[in-house]
């Protein structure tokens, strides 16, 4: 180390030569997008989801073209002499259900419900989770103890049962009210696991020297929270939210299957499966159509979420981590 005294300040050599200008600085987003584009499965999922969204948006158009509104029964054309629903054909493209309604039109409306409920409750849950997680992890102390306990307790609740209890005690009959309640219930039971992860993340961020650096510069807590903490959570939040969407869709489908989700006559893939379960033996399309659509959607969202995670954090192993 005595070489130090020989190194005169004037002789300060330049840092290892700067790379020539041809290296264009790319933002993290550009880098992530470049990685994402290489992930074929994720790209295919994205396409499937876009098609699904178009299918859902076109719901009223399907009803127009076929002449079958989603809540109208067509006993004469949709049911055969024995009262059994007709299968896929010229009139009913994807068959009819046991009441004589058009499965294609109902499935399209069901896609709306699944996508809207899935995305809205995931967004709501992540908003709530980030707020609670950041507050809990950043403020610490009593606030943290209380919020962390609330999250623990929420996780200990039997969510399906409490959701059922809510739906039955409030006896909601309107479609909009049941839709709102379903979204709120799903968001409430999803925010805690989200919040716990964010809390852990924030607590480890808080230990980082750049937070200390910001504080020593005189930055206020609010500034540190928004300028230094939140931007570091974006990747994690994006991944978690995208993986929360399929979970929420399954949650909604299960509730509707049991008849406590989105109320009739608004169709949901879950309620279509529930209503049709008695006549599957003869009318397989009542099982296959909603089940395949549901599976396709959740699988695509899961693959997309994995793709986003890989793109944002190339080191992370593809399926490491808890469910």
């Amino acid at each position, binding site marked *: 180390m005595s070489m130090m005294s020989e190194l005169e300040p004037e002789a*300060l050599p330049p*840092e290892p030569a700067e790379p020539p200008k041809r290296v264009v600085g790319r933002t993290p987003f550009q880098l992530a997008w470049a990685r994402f584009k290489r992930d074929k499965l994720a790209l295919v999922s994205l396409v499937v989801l876009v098609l699904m969204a178009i299918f859902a948006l076109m719901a009223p158009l399907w009803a127009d073209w076929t002449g079958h509104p989603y809540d109208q029964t067509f006993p004469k054309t949709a049911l055969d002499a024995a009262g059994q629903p007709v299968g896929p054909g010229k009139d009913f493209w994807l068959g009819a259900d046991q009441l004589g309604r058009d499965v294609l039109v109902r499935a399209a409306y069901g896609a709306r419900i699944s996508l809207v409920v899935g995305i809205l409750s995931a967004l709501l849950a992540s908003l709530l989770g980030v707020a609670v997680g950041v507050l809990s992890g950043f403020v610490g102390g009593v606030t943290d103890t209380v919020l962390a306990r609330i999250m623990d307790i929420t996780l200990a609740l039997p969510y399906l049962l409490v959701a059922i209890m809510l739906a039955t005690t409030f006896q909601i009959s309107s479609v909009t009210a049941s839709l709102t309640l379903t979204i709120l219930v799903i968001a409430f039971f999803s925010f805690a696991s989200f919040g716990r992860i964010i809390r852990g993340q924030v607590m480890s961020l808080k230990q980082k020297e750049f937070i200390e650096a*910001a504080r*020593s510069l*005189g*930055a206020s807590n609010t*500034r540190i929270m928004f300028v230094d903490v939140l931007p570091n959570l*974006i990747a994690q939040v994006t991944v978690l939210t995208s993986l929360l969407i399929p979970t929420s869709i399954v949650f909604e489908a299960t509730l509707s299957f049991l008849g406590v989700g989105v109320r009739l006559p608004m169709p949901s893939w879950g309620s279509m499966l529930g209503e049709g379960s008695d006549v599957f033996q003869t009318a397989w399309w009542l099982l296959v159509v909603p089940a395949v659509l549901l599976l396709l959607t959740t699988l695509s969202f899961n693959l997309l979420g994995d793709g986003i995670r890989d793109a944002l954090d190339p080191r992370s192993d593809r399926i490491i981590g808890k469910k």
Partner: protein
Amino acid sequence: MTAGTAGLHAAAERETLVSVQGVVKHFPIKQGIVFKKEVARVHAVDGVDLEVRSGETVGIVGESGSGKSTLARCVTGLHPVTSGRILFEGTDITKLSGAGLKAFRKDVQMIFQDPYGSLNPRRRVGSIIGDPFAIHGLASGAERKKRVQELMELVGLNPEHYNRFPAEFSGGQRQRIGVARALAVRPKLIVCDEPVSALDVSIQAQVINLLKDLQREFGLTYIFIAHDLSVVRYVSDRVGVMYLGRIGEAAAAGDLYERPRHPYSAALLSAASIADPDEAERAERIVLIGDVPSPIDPPSGCRFHPRCPKAEERCTVDEPELEVKEGDAADHLTACHFPVEPGENLAREHAGIRQESTEPELPEVEQ
């Protein structure tokens, strides 16, 4: 090495910028079923006095766990102190809040150890260096950009890299970013917390020299924390040696390195690498027993006694004062009952008390 003594004389006339008076910082360890109560405390800094004069560099050395980084964070106001006073230009900063604290934060800046951890990976370099301008409302827009680029040039960075992310820089360059950020508000004092220990040796010299240049140019005052003795010696006018939250010895840099009086300083110096192989062969190392004891339950009396080759009965009960010993310069303070005499060979000393290894006993390993 004469730089040290020269600096000392010059320093004597300078006014005091920072005065640390009896500062104590304890971290409580809490446990409890419903209500947490304190069961123990980590004595990170346990009664430190320190004067820093305007324009000088005060080095602080010590092993990890000696409390030097905690002391740095107390001085910059990042940790509230448990007791004691820290005067900055005569104002007690431990009582500051609100606008007063913000003004103080403008005058005192910090450079951190980890050039990877101390820069927010999600923000562009320009916005990181411009942070002080934004926080203190000094400049915005094009004006801020211009000043940031001036700073980048000043610390030897390419101003065209304004829009890059920290990940695109090497360790040395990142530390330069940290230096630029600290310089932005023209502070009076910069606390450097092991600024080069995470860097390659070849890069260390560059960053150290940059810091020295900047000190000359802007008349900066440094508190320089390190565990590497040669770095501290090179940059510091005066040096304090910390052990378990206390200062064991403080003196002008050259004086301390020539004539260490505290057995711990002597041991540290004997363990430091010596560049000349002949000299290294002649030098005898003082081997200390065990590890630094736990700061949760520091030893009684002199904190160094369980490891000290000269320890006597008295050291286990009587805590030595930090004072001038016979034959030393007026600013050479030592906290020891039995200071090392010049020429004394510590490696042959035997303690007058039974010494215990403080290494924790490891449980038997299965299989």
